[in-house]
């Protein structure tokens, strides 16, 4: 397996508080890795370390074998795209939102290109000139995914993108991500609270608790693991 991202003894502290503690592991190229764990486990922090929104306090992160700091921040963030949990939308049309990554590079996104990306996320052409603020939660999230894809990232980071959606939208987004993974051969790291979702979409899974990576491996094998912490987490979440 070729590593897309590698963590080597990575720690992250904020205000002298340890958020991530000695993380070691690899995200394999072209695969979907789900990140599971309770709130406060450090999952979002880990994701933001991957595209340079945060920097590790110690240790090293490698993006395709190169230290993360060898990349210009803007280049890194186009290469490793993130879809944020809150799916922030900028005021204006869906086109304006989709064109944002191009606008930031002083380029113009052709409308037919924008439509292509809209279609990729299951939205038709009629959405292009609609006001983004008028969209439903699921539609916003799809626009948000399409907007990140405009940069043609090699790694796609997804931060609980279905947590606020209804079951139909959750299913649509899951199918969409699986399709994107296959079509663009993009590496995906997907934070989810939902263990069932992690099982449905993940090739690999990382289980995190209190800033530590307590287990990682192939998703199917992981859930048969006898590790007491994992079993507790699985049963805790299932009970919830």
């Amino acid at each position, binding site marked *: 397996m070729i590593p897309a991202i590698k963590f080597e003894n990575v720690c992250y502290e*904020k205000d002298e508080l340890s958020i991530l503690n000695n993380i070691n592991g690899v995200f394999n190229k072209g695969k979907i890795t789900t990140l599971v764990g309770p709130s406060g486990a450090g999952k979002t922090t880990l994701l933001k370390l991957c595209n340079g*929104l945060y920097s590790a306090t110690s240790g090293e992160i490698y993006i395709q074998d190169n230290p993360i700091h060898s990349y210009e*921040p803007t280049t890194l*963030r186009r290469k490793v795209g993130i879809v944020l949990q809150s799916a922030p939308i900028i005021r204006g049309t869906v086109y304006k939102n989709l064109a944002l990554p191009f606008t930031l590079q002083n380029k113009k996104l052709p409308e037919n290109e924008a439509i292509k990306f809209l279609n990729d996320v299951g939205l038709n052409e009629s959405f292009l000139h609609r006001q983004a603020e008028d969209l439903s939660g699921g539609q916003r999230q799809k626009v948000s995914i399409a907007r990140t894809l405009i940069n043609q990232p090699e790694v796609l980071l997804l931060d609980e993108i279905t947590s606020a959606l209804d079951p139909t939208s959750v299913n649509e987004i899951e199918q969409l991500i699986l399709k994107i993974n296959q079509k663009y051969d993009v590496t995906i790291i997907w934070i989810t609270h939902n263990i069932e979702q992690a099982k449905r979409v993940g090739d690999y899974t990382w289980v995190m608790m209190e800033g530590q990576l307590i287990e990682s491996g192939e998703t199917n094998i992981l859930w048969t693991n006898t590790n007491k912490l994992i079993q507790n987490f699985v049963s805790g979440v299932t009970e919830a």
Partner: protein
Amino acid sequence: MSYTTLSLTLIFVLIPLVLSKSLKLDLEKDTIIATVRSIIQLLIVGYILKFVFETESIIYILLMITLMIVAATLNARKKGKAIKGITWKIALTLIVVEVVTQGILIGLHIIPATAQYIIPISGMLIGNSMVLSILFLNRFTAEVESSRDQIELVLSLGGTPKQAIHTQLTNAIKASMIPTIESQKTIGLVQLPGMMSGQIIGGADPVQAVQFQILIIFGLLTTAALSSIIVGFLSYPTLFNERMQIIKNV
């Protein structure tokens, strides 16, 4: 006006004191402190100005302007404590405002280069610049706090800090300039400006008083634009580190 006559104006202080006491507003202490401070400060300034006007020494003029800039900086910086180096940023802004406005006024012979003109006009423009800086810093820090998601979104898509903060920066610049522009729209209709009123009461020709007031309001427009834009563009880079990450706890 004699000091005995002036002392009768203390009735205007008594009215709010009585109201505060009877309505339990708890503003008596602050009102008394403000009254005492304004009497002492203004009397001292009055005597200092008299001395400076009589000597007409450039050193004393510069000293007075420096004093104004230092006092205005120390007052305005309280609102931007979270911004690194805010003291020198505000001081630099006030210096630029002073140099540009006085440069135009004196350079084009609009006013004579004497203490009588330079000091009061500097006071008004530096004072306005201080208020503008405070308004800007208040709004800017609030905008950054409430728009973290938006800022992070632009950064995450490969935007630079300048691109990420652009909306918040321009919103804060606009918001801080609007009061100056709006108040000028109704000037003379709703209120007669203090300086103009003072000149008229002092016996000056009303038309000449208006001419000086026009000079001031045009100066205030430049001051408003320069202050918020300079403080803004000096401040925003300190919200990010060298890896283009937004620094926490703005």
